[in-house]
């Protein structure tokens, strides 16, 4: 057995030195690490700032260029507005006649037209209103089917047909046969003598003179209406061109009318808001720009 004769304080002193050295080393390392972090982060930040400054001129120029393009368009807004208005007005004058020419082949020959018009609904739909005369209930039914063949036809409303269907009457004491008679008339007696007397009485009552139905037989040159036992029928067809639908060439349901008053007022409000100088007035020569917008005549003669 060996005896440890070294005092305990000697061992603690060596450990103390080691710990102090270790602590100092740790502090030094931490200081170095902190310095590294400060240096590296500063470099990174400086580099990022420099890259931003490098990228800024191109971006600023791009934005300025975009604004300039918009300014060019805004400055020409007066001209383009007036140009569009003029073109729309000129184009609108042929819409109705072309549309009627397109529609006419779909109107059946048994439907004698006396009136035709169109109501605009929106830029994709309109309502075609027809008025004319037909004779029979079958024609009344066929008319709807015929008009549904119009490209874009969606709905049909019709009115005015007066039914003249023949009816089979119930038997009575006088009429033991039940012959077919027009609607609204009373059955004729079966007995020949009584039937003759009934027909004579009916003729006496109903033939009271010239009836002038529908202007027929009159010397006037006004349009003829429905003849006796014919009907004046009004038909309305909703025509629609939904998005994506293909219509035959030449069909157009946009009957919205260019409105010069509203268009000019709206353009004036736009200009008054300071968005752009006015342009597009009718200037005399081919190269003379329009008169300046907003110029005050009070300042003297307004000129270029």
């Amino acid at each position, binding site marked *: 057995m060996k005896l440890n004769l070294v005092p305990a304080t000697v061992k603690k002193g060596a*450990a*103390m030195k080691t710990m102090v050295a270790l602590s100092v080393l740790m502090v030094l390392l931490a200081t170095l690490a902190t310095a590294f972090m400060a240096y590296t982060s*500063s470099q990174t930040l400086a580099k990022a700032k420099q890259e931003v400054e490098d990228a800024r001129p*191109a971006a600023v120029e791009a934005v300025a260029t975009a604004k300039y393009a918009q300014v060019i368009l805004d400055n020409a807004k007066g001209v383009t507005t007036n*140009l569009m*208005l003029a073109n729309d007005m000129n184009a609108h004058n042929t819409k109705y006649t072309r549309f009627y020419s397109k529609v006419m082949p779909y109107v059946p020959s048994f439907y004698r037209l006396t*009136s035709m018009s169109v109501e605009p609904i929106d830029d994709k739909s309109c309502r075609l209103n027809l008025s004319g005369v037909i004779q029979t209930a079958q024609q009344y039914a066929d008319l709807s089917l015929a008009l549904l063949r119009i490209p874009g036809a969606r709905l049909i409303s019709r009115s005015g047909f007066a039914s003249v269907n023949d009816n089979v009457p119930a038997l009575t004491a006088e009429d033991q046969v039940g012959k077919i008679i027009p609607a609204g008339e009373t059955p004729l007696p079966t007995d020949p003598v009584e039937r003759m007397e009934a027909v004579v009485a009916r003729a006496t009552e109903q033939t009271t003179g010239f009836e002038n139905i529908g202007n027929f037989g009159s010397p006037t040159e006004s349009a003829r209406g429905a003849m006796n036992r014919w009907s004046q029928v009004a038909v309305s067809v909703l025509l629609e061109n939904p998005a994506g639908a293909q219509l035959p060439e030449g069909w157009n349901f946009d009957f919205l009318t260019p409105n010069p008053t509203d268009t000019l007022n709206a353009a004036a409000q736009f200009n008054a808001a300071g968005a752009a100088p006015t342009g597009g007035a009718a200037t*005399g020569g081919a190269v003379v720009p329009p008169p300046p917008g907003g110029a005050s005549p009070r300042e003297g*003669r307004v000129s270029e």
Partner: protein
Amino acid sequence: MKLTPLTILILGFCISAVILAVGYCNYWAPKTAEAANYNGLRDKLQAEGNKLPRQKKNVQDATQITQAAAQEWQSIVVRKTPPNNVSEGGINLAVNRWYLVNDAVRFRNRIQMDVNRQLKVGGVKVLSAPTVPAFPDNPLTIVEEGFGYPRLGFPARVYDFGTVTVEGTMAQIRTNVESWSNMPKYLAVVDALRIDGTPPRLTATYNLSMLIYIRSKDVFPPVPEIPDGDAPAGPGPGGPGGGLAVGAAGR
């Protein structure tokens, strides 16, 4: 109290931790975050800068569009505006407004003649025709009320004439209606065409609006005239009648 080795180690560790914390929180974290923000900004700027060629192309396109529109508009001006001369059937807003009142009467009559002529195109019989309203006869307001200047930004006149009725065959009516697109000196639009009757005597009813752009490089300023209601009751220093202000008149 004596410091033990362990205490020294803990002390060194704590001091190191504090130093590291200062380095991280004071330098590393904020500057790295700021750099990240700058990088984000850089990316956005670069993305915007990459649009420069396209924006330059947009400027070129906008210039071409406006030039094409201006040329097309000038062609319309030539065909669809009255001349800048009263003797040729137009109107000149550069004359003083006392003269302009008289010129406007002649101009109105010329418009009515042109409308009357246009109404008969196609050989139709006119059943109902519009009347062109007169321009204001007040030299103080004729430009503002009669030609919408400077309210519209340029002188122009709109007539909503209302209903026109003509009679003829289908071909005559078609020619009549479509001819409004070719009316010289004016822009006209036909709306709500309704055809009644049976061939060959058809009646067409439609609404007519007309727009007149006035050619004018110059507009005469208001004349120095006192409105009727504001005129002095009796003869003033300027002579009998009053009403004519002395001052900066004319152009």
